């Protein structure tokens, strides 16, 4: 079952169409939500949470319709908002416990889980301090803790690395990857930082002007990219080409010892090294064709709407 299914979803706010007939299915364990400012990322998140009602179409989260089953959906979601969102005069653990109880955790378990969540995100030592005294990075982490405390099936993170220094960012990315790898939780991560999405997500939804510019399975892209290899060699003759073709590769040679290959699934990079070693060929440089997330994003931004790339 798809985590999120978008079915002609349209949302209007103040008479303006913010999300325009979004259709698609998000199935990845961690889905990145990308798009320029004003493309509708936050509106999509708010609509999934039931904060905005669709004006047309609908969306389903784990099969539950956002129009009629908003409460059930919210019961399965953990949400980390983009901006500050806490009760300043509460201690961190008290706030997280409060949110856990609101999510339906019985009081006796909520306190224990709040302590766990605070330690898990690395705020164990400051859990009794008032949140208003926390640094920006700590506030981000306490937002993550409250989103995680009830063990949601679906975690929505809106700009989780906003305002974090490189160390704190790395820590946040590690936590997100850890949650993703736990296998219990699906993630939807909205971010402006392509690198964050690249490091954490296996699928990406790119929005542009309220419409889907691309839905792309990053894992498949990465796997496919691994098959296109460029080599720069010294002393590679025809025999090198023959040996490579014998592996099942399609290859073409260019002046200056440059080779371009498309490798089959059965062949590994190590096989190329073995052939090179057996023929005394030096491999000076090896490049994968890097159709990076940035390329995917830029292509999506350049593409005409309606001719969106849907690679799932």
């Amino acid at each position: 079952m798809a985590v999120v299914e978008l079915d002609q979803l349209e949302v209007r706010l103040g008479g303006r169409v913010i999300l325009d007939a979004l259709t698609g299915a998000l199935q990845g364990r961690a889905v990145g939500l990308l798009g320029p400012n004003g493309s509708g990322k936050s509106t999509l998140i708010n609509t999934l949470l039931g904060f905005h009602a669709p004006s047309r179409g609908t969306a389903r989260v784990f099969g539950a319709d956002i129009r009629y089953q908003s409460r059930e959906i919210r019961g399965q979601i953990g949400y980390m908002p983009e901006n500050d969102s806490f009760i300043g005069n509460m201690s961190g653990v008290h706030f997280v416990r409060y949110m856990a109880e609101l999510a339906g955790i019985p009081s006796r378990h909520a306190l224990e889980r709040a302590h766990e969540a605070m330690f898990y995100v690395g705020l164990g030592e400051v859990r009794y301090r008032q949140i208003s005294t926390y640094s920006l990075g700590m506030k981000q982490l306490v937002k993550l803790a409250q989103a995680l405390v009830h063990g949601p099936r679906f975690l929505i993170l809106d700009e989780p690395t906003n305002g974090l220094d490189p160390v704190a960012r790395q820590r946040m990315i590690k936590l997100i990857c850890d949650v993703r790898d736990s296998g219990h939780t699906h993630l939807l991560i909205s971010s402006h930082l392509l690198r964050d999405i690249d490091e954490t997500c296996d699928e990406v939804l790119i929005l542009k002007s309220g419409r889907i510019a691309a839905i792309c399975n990053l894992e498949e892209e990465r796997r496919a990219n691994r098959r296109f290899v460029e080599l720069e060699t010294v002393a590679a003759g025809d025999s090198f080409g023959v040996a490579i073709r014998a592996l099942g590769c399609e290859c073409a040679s260019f002046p200056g010892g440059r080779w371009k290959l498309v490798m089959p699934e059965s062949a590994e990079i190590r096989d190329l090294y073995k052939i090179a070693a057996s023929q005394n060929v030096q491999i000076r440089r090896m490049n994968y064709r890097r159709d990076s997330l940035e390329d995917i994003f830029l292509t999506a931004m350049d593409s005409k709407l309606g001719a969106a790339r849907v690679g799932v």
Partner: protein
Amino acid sequence: MSVFKRNYRPFTGTPTSRAGRFLVLMRYGFSDLWSSRITNVLSLLCLLPTLLAMAAIYIANNNAVRLLISNATGSGGPPIISINETYFYAILQGQCWLALVLTAWIGPRLIGIDLANNALPTILSHPISRVEYVLAKLALLASFLSVVTWVPLLLLFGLQSYLSATPWAFAHLHIAYGSFIGCMIWILLLSLIALAVSSWVRWRIVATGMIFAAVFVPAGTGNVFNAVMRTTWGRLIDIPWMIITLWQRLLRVELPRYFSRNEVPTLPIILALTAICVLCASALNARLRAREVVRG
């Protein structure tokens, strides 16, 4: 295993019911309110008149004490205090105006505390609706105010019924339900005004002043309207006048002609109070959103 060694894990127990989550909002609200010493002191002060009224009822119904007092004062006339509609009306008034003071203190924190650091999106992202959120805050304030309004009044009614030598309760049931209904109308009105102000004004001192202003400023405006237009319909924005009139009618208090409040019927008063409640509910609806709506 110690909590600091545990890893991320889902919750496998049984979640609480919908009503349970509603009560969570109330419980945390109470916990916050009672954390203030001023709230504690104010609440106790609000109960002091009830203790005095209890003592008065005891004295009024105790022949030995009455005899002692009349001997001490040398008066052999009628009892000093008669426990009747006017007595309960006086207590009702006192308690209800004290409830206003209490509301002005605790009201601004109720929603303001969640709006100060934009906690509403996080709270409403849980399985709880905006209506439930407002109802929980309303119930919190209403239960708080009940403790200083109709609950002591009904206790006094019960005490008087118990101590009275003659059958008293059935002949005066209108005092009991009049007090209860009168207090509930006042509590609902105060709670909605307090929540509406709390949602719009973040600075506590200003919000406290605004609650008083919301009650008393329209009264002045209504009187000016009456004077200029030579009418009495300006009373319909005079909250103190309307509520006092309702209390008098509910308790069937007979006042001297000078204080007669018969110029405006009950139905328009009820409609006017309903309109004020609807206005406050609209103000809440406009303000309490998990996200700001971008217009353009």
